[in-house]
């Protein structure tokens, strides 16, 4: 499956402009014969929404939603938005549109709420990590901070996914002699998911600035068992094309039998013991 990550900077709160950009990128991806196009977290709205969140939320069946469904007749799309499924209740969500319909919604469960982050003031956390089908693949979505909790990716590993998609709005931070330390967080997890969960993993981060906070880009594709094999630019807008192959997952599982040897029942037993101690 030919996938494309679009690394860009949405206009904060200008859904119309961002949707136009999505449509233009979809048209370009269709022309380039891609099968799945993935936009970053909150790609339709921008990140630091504060009081804007309720004003720009995406509503199932609403005008923007229908337009995305229409766009997905030609190509599968994953886009990020503040989602209002129940009146007045917002979630930070990723929506998978395919063959003219929304087919899957992932609602972010890990909402960062410290320092510069205040997602807990805006969103209600999601409560599930459900694998879903993208063409021939079993896939799972993680949103930003969820990526940094490896036990959440493990839930998809247990569901035998072949493709993880991580969408992010990661602010670049931690300058030192070796560059920006936050870049390493995401790449480390890319290595972990690829090597130990034997996943094909597409990480899509945004770029651009919101009131001085810069988002670092550095989207990448990690091939199952092989680590990061392709990387987009840091800081700048970029497009990353990759090819996801089921054979890589099979090959990785044969080479190192982490999935076969995994003992989820043991993990569950121990978790119950620890939690109820």
């Amino acid at each position, binding site marked *: 499956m030919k996938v494309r990550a679009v690394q860009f900077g949405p206009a904060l709160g200008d859904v119309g402009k961002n949707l136009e950009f999505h449509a233009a990128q979809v048209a370009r991806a269709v022309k380039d014969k891609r099968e799945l196009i993935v936009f970053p977290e909150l790609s339709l709205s921008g990140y630091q929404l*504060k009081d804007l969140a309720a004003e720009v939320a995406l509503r199932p069946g609403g005008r923007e939603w229908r337009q995305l469904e229409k766009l997905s007749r030609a190509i599968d799309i994953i886009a990020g938005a503040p989602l209002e499924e129940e009146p007045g209740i917002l979630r930070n969500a990723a929506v998978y549109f395919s063959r003219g319909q929304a087919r899957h919604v992932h609602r972010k469960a890990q909402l960062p709420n410290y320092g510069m982050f205040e997602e807990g003031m805006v969103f209600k956390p999601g409560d599930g990590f459900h694998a879903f089908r993208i063409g021939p693949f079993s896939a799972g979505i993680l949103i930003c901070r969820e990526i940094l909790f490896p036990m959440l990716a493990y839930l998809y590993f247990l569901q035998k996914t072949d493709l993880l998609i991580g969408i992010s709005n990661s602010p670049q931070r931690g300058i030192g*002699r070796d560059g920006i330390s936050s870049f390493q967080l995401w790449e480390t997890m890319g290595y972990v998911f690829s090597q130990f969960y034997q996943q094909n993993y597409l990480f899509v981060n945004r770029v651009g600035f919101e009131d001085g906070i810069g988002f670092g880009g550095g989207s990448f594709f990690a091939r199952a068992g092989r680590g990061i094999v392709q990387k987009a630019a840091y800081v700048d807008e970029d497009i990353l094309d990759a090819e996801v192959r089921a054979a890589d997952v099979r090959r990785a599982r044969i080479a190192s039998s982490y999935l076969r040897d995994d003992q989820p029942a043991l993990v569950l037993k121990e978790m119950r013991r620890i939690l109820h101690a």
Partner: protein
Amino acid sequence: MLKIDCRMVEKILTAFIKDSVLKNGFRNAIVGVSGGLDSAVVLALCKKALGAAHAFALILPYRASDPDSLRHGKMACRKFRVPFEVIDISPSVDAYFERFPTESRLQVGNKCARERMAVLYDHSARQQALVAGTSNKSELLIGYSTQFGDSACAFQPIGDLYKTQVFELARHLGVPAEIVAKKPSADLWPGQTDEGEIGIAYKDLDVLLHLMVDMRWDEGEIIERGFKLPLIRRVRRMIVNSQFKRTMPPVAKLHARTIGIDFRYLRDWNK
């Protein structure tokens, strides 16, 4: 401890300048060039971000300014090939103090800083150029600036770099060695130096600020690192007492939604 990857910093800061200018509907930036390090660095970054045709400099000497400041200001502009204009602020500053005489050199210094701000903002309109700030993190944290004077700007490219890091970036960007080598000074009166006035060398102040602010070390840990308690407390007081310079003035809340309190939108709203 404070070493930086200058190439990455340059990449981020030039992207930030470009973004700040273009998303606000401008194409140009204007920099008040003092002849010192910070404004030379910001000038170089603006030139790299926007191109020579979209960066402008104003050199704004007062009659008591060190002649080297003017010379170094011109040197920086010529080095980075940025068009500049020299505007002597003495007539307007002196006209004011003829009416309201003072013996306070601090008042004169503050007046000069605010006069420069007024000229820069007027030229901002004339040139359709946003005013680029030149404050660094060290001076922002300890409040070593004139409110509504040198701290006034549309965006702050080097506001998260300590002074010692600005030195490193300056060498990377090719700021003339003579400017990098001279002692930092606000040049508010003859012989003034930042370090003399603040009472601590930047190389120590910056490590102390980094430990206090970025690393969140407590007093005990910082003392173990070799700093004396009275200095730690003095710097902490400087940070606390200058918080008013880093925030908008408070609005007295009366309605359900109040500006600055719970009317919560970014400056980059719809941009």
